[in-house]
């Protein structure tokens, strides 16, 4: 069984993290991998924290739920408090810079990044923070190819927002580069 990647994307409802999860999974399919996406539903998804989970694998995926993520993303403090502590020891944690992380958190990489600020200041719309985050995740981890990610984004976004989303993606990649220096 080849290694399978488990990702958990969390934030508040309306931040587009479920869309981001679907895009990531669809990008994986374009790379000829398998992917499964699940999400939180109901009151949980409306108030407080919502999450999308994605599993990406070269093989078929049996159990569809994430058990111990290799990568987690949180865009709000509430989501972070709820979901960030489950992470594999060799995993990567990415949170917005506004978030305070518990000192006890253990992971191979922990990044606090100005995701939302970048979306607001450099792209001009907070709503594309999810796409900035996707650029960041893929720039840091390479879990899908950049070509597949862009194609998957373009297939899911509303018509007329292509340039905005391309810019957001670019800013995400740039954030990743600054972190890797």
């Amino acid at each position, binding site marked *: *069984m080849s290694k399978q990647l488990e990702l958990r994307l969390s934030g508040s409802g309306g931040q587009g993290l479920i869309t981001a999860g*679907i895009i990531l*999974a*669809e990008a994986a*399919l374009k790379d000829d991998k*398998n*992917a*499964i*996406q*699940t*999400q*939180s*539903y*109901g009151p*949980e998804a409306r108030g407080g924290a919502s999450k999308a989970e994605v599993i990406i694998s070269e093989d078929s*995926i*049996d*159990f*569809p*739920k994430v*058990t111990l993520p290799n990568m987690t993303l949180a865009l709000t403090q509430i989501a972070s408090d709820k979901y960030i502590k489950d992470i594999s020891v060799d995993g990567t944690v990415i949170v917005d810079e506004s978030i305070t992380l518990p000192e006890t958190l253990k992971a191979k990489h922990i990044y606090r990044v100005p995701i939302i600020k970048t979306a607001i200041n450099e792209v001009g719309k907070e709503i594309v923070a999810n796409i900035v985050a996707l650029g960041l995740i893929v720039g840091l981890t390479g879990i899908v190819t950049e070509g597949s990610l862009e194609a998957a984004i373009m297939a899911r976004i509303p018509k007329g927002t292509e340039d905005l989303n391309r810019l957001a993606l670019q800013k995400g990649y740039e954030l990743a580069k600054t972190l890797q220096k």
Partner: protein
Amino acid sequence: MAKKVKFLQGNEACVEGALMAGMTFYSGYPITPSTEIAELSAERLPRIGGKFIQMEDEIAGIAAAIGASLTGAKAMTATSGPGFSLKQENIGYAALTEIPVVIVNVQRGGPSTGLPTAPGQGDLMQAMWGTHGDHPVICLTPDSVRETFDLTIRAFNLAEKYRTPVILLTDEITGHMREKIEIPDASEVEIYNRIKPEPGSDYKAYKVVDGDIVPKMADFGSGFRYHVTGLMHDETGFPSNSTKNAGILMDRLMAKITDNLDDIITFEEIETADADYLIVAYGGTARTAKAAVKKLRAEGIKVGLFRPITVWPFPEAALYKLSEQVKDIIVAELNYGQMKLEVERVVKNNAPVRFCGKANGEVLTPEELIQKFKEVL
């Protein structure tokens, strides 16, 4: 052959399958976690000239579908636990009047309102015994998005072929997860359409002729003015108080299923050829079991999986055969042991039947199943 690769939820795949099967009518009532089926049907049906209607309640949802089916439409309704309970009377009506209809139940945690957004498998017995009186039942259970697509088509085909309601029993796990699915070309898919009487032919609405399995079914409005009733009826379709007639009708209804088990029953076996131990699981929980079998096999334990795809009628013969070979059986499901009862009934004393399950709205993880497996075996 050009294949369309899509990334869909099980609920979405259900609608894709229904449309490929020829669905032209959907009526239902919103209920979590099945609502995507209604939403997508509402969007897609008018584009092909089909009809969607949101009815005033769950009972009306199935009633309108049965009414539409009588005019020749392939009709479906979808629901979850509470709505499935409400639909039961009319499931029996469709069974007795032999009107094809597909009922999808995306199971959630019950009883009562329970856990609307969480998975459960507590409706297994209700799918068989939910309506009053003995009646034929076909119930199919997918464990993936692709299989949801395939079994929705099969549900329509079986409903048309055997003139009976067919229940597609999915769950929140497969209903809501998104997964890769290759949608086959329509030319690759086998579609069964109900047999109608020749125009102008002598027609008795409930008489089996020409070596058919079921009576031919005329569309309302096609020139055969016949009567449909939920009362016991004779071959003409009109009510009959004759106990002899009632016996003939009931025997024929039940035999439609029992005489055609090989056609109706499907199941999957994984790693059973040399298995000493057997896990029995279905629907979303089968995914847990598949992962557990792989991990246990990697440890050198000879374990296999038996997965009923048709859960009603239950795949007795195949399971019985396996039970003669294995030392132990464990049934994994999200309830307090509904299929376990059926497995015990079938395997008799061939092997002890253990149980691993819960009904708290969580999925069963492979680790939990493996732990239970090691505990009891």
